[in-house]
């Protein structure tokens, strides 16, 4: 067989370099952002920027060395977080960020491994991985940005969509029961479980800091506006309007039983730190139960 292919345009490193260095370094947070990746792809009013900033602020105030941290994402709007952070970042397949991160963690035990992903990615297609990583107590920080719908694909219903909410695939109202993510995380074995909204940016920073200082499977749910995908069909207004809703409807209930923290459509939003306990991690258990029998250790 003979081939006929188009001429390839070669990669121009100098041009790419000029582009990525353009205006990079002007903002104090730029050392945490990959050169040339801003502007981001997120919509006006989206909460992802707030979550990303909270993460950066937490890292900065904890002085976490950038090269001891890696971020793994799945697919979706939140899945794009990884690509903006100036560290080792992995943008994996839909739903599989947690098992990828599990492999990475076990190969790099001293690293901070953070999973950033959305509610659909982590709890629909990736739900099985979430509960098993929590059960094993793999030392991961999982940040779920919950906007109650599939934003990237244009606003379809997902596993957290409120009852009766309108989406493009529930045009007459959602008839499925949603997950209560914090309850699921707690029941699955997470050692740290918190929920905040993007209005609670400072609490969120403190939660991320707590997670950086804690071993085990840590879960933070961040309720975030999606004015384009979820706000519009449900008449929630702009991103700012949703922030106002969060301010009005949120109540902080630290240490509350997460079972009682279910979310109602347009009802009260219970936020807070629900679970914070100590438990040996997967690697602690593997070392104690198995490796020690052979005089081996991998935690270094």
């Amino acid at each position, binding site marked *: 067989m003979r081939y006929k292919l188009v001429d390839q345009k070669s990669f121009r490193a100098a041009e790419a370099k000029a582009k990525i260095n353009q205006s990079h370094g002007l903002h104090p947070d730029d050392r945490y952002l990959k050169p040339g990746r801003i502007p981001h792809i997120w919509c006006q009013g989206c909460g992802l920027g707030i979550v990303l900033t909270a993460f950066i602020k937490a890292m900065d105030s904890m002085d976490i060395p950038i090269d001891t941290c890696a971020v793994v994402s799945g697919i979706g709007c939140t899945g794009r977080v990884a*690509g903006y952070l100036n560290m*080792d970042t992995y943008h994996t397949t839909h739903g599989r960020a947690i098992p990828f991160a599990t*492999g990475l963690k076990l190969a790099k035990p001293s690293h901070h491994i953070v999973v950033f992903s959305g509610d659909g990615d982590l709890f629909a297609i990736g739900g099985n991985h979430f509960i098993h990583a929590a059960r094993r107590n793999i030392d991961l920080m999982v940040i779920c940005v919950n906007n109650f719908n599939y934003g990237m694909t244009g606003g379809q219903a997902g596993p957290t969509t409120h009852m009766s909410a309108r989406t493009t695939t529930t045009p007459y109202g959602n008839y499925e029961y949603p997950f209560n993510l914090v309850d699921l995380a707690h029941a699955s074995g997470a050692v740290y479980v918190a929920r905040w909204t993007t209005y609670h940016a400072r609490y969120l920073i403190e939660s991320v800091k707590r997670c950086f200082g804690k071993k085990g499977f840590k879960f933070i749910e961040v309720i975030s506006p999606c004015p384009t995908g979820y706000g519009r069909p449900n008449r929630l207004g702009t991103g700012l309007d949703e922030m106002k809703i969060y301010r009005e409807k949120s109540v902080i209930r630290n240490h509350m039983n997460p079972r009682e923290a279910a979310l109602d459509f347009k009802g009260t939003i219970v936020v807070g730190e629900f679970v914070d306990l100590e438990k040996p991690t997967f690697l602690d258990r593997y070392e104690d139960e198995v490796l020690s029998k052979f005089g*081996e250790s991998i935690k270094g």
Partner: protein
Amino acid sequence: MKKDREVLTGEHFLNGDEACAEGAIAAGCRFFAGYPITPATEVSETMARRLPEVGGVYIQMEDEIASMAAILGASWGGVKSMTATSGPGFSLMMENIGLGMMMETPCVVINIMRGGPSTGLPTLVGQGDVMQARWGSHGDYGVIALTPASPQEMFDLAIRAFNLSEKYRIPVIVLSDEMIGHMYEKVVIPERRAVPRISRKKPRTAADEFYPFQGEKDLIPPMACAGDGYRIHVTGLTHDEQGYPVISADAQERLVRRLCDKIRLHAGEIIDFRETATKDADVIVVAYGCSARSAEEAVGLSRREGIRVGLLRLVTVWPFPEERVRQLAERVKGFVVPEVNYGQIAYEVERCAGGKETLMMGLMGGAVHNPEMIMNAIKEMAESGKAAGGERGVKRS
């Protein structure tokens, strides 16, 4: 680490699954993620028992999707990693095998083939995943698949699979089958220093001069793992040489062509086959894995009857040795291709046979070929240059 437990030098009586696990550990594999499945479970069991002895990590994941994702993550953590499965699990792994191809991640996937489709024949042999190994994940990419035909080769090819994966930065597939996986034979494990070991290329430039997905002359980019200080972005999206997502035809053209070409360019050094009595052969039997065992017997018996027949045993099914088959086609009457499926490699042989007769001898799975079946086909082909058989074997009553 206990060096003496790394390579168990000496003579052993092992089945193929166990030998494969020993080969992996000898090659430097220190991370295994898997999910139990017949007939590949013995690979997992051996890894669970052996990895702690050498300071490695064994984890039983919740499914094969997670297993495949985990070995990719471990590889980016700088550790040689592997999973093992059979047909249903192999199907589940396909999306993340594609991710491994896109992220150019060295790792090894063992598939101990059983009869399919679906649950099929969990405990019995099949070779129906050959084309799946080549084309199973969506999109275009280069593939390397090895087909061991004995427990000894399971050991040897597990080592080669790791070395190829590290060299070419792709998930390498070892396409074995239930018969070879469960067959017990003598396996000779060499001394530690006789085990060849290749590790991925590391970047030699400073971080701001490093383009993590720019192929060098050999089209393979050096690999910066987590914590190496390069702070790279690795994505399953089409990306440019910096690793940044670029959704364009130009970026796709450059990336996907390189992913294919990096294997095509090196096909000559990757391809491995064994020839028996092919020099003066009128008929060539092309076989691999369990089918090669029956074929070997059939060729030997036919030779004793004076029939000029040779065996081309494929050690790598992918890349397929097109050139060699074309050369052989020039001087033979035809090819006999026994395989435990309804024709997969037979199509590749026919494609390269230059119009010479190609007889596909298919078994749907559950049993291997009786050497006599192959002998009869060889005899007919040698005598008449024709193969007795129907079009696609469909019999109508």
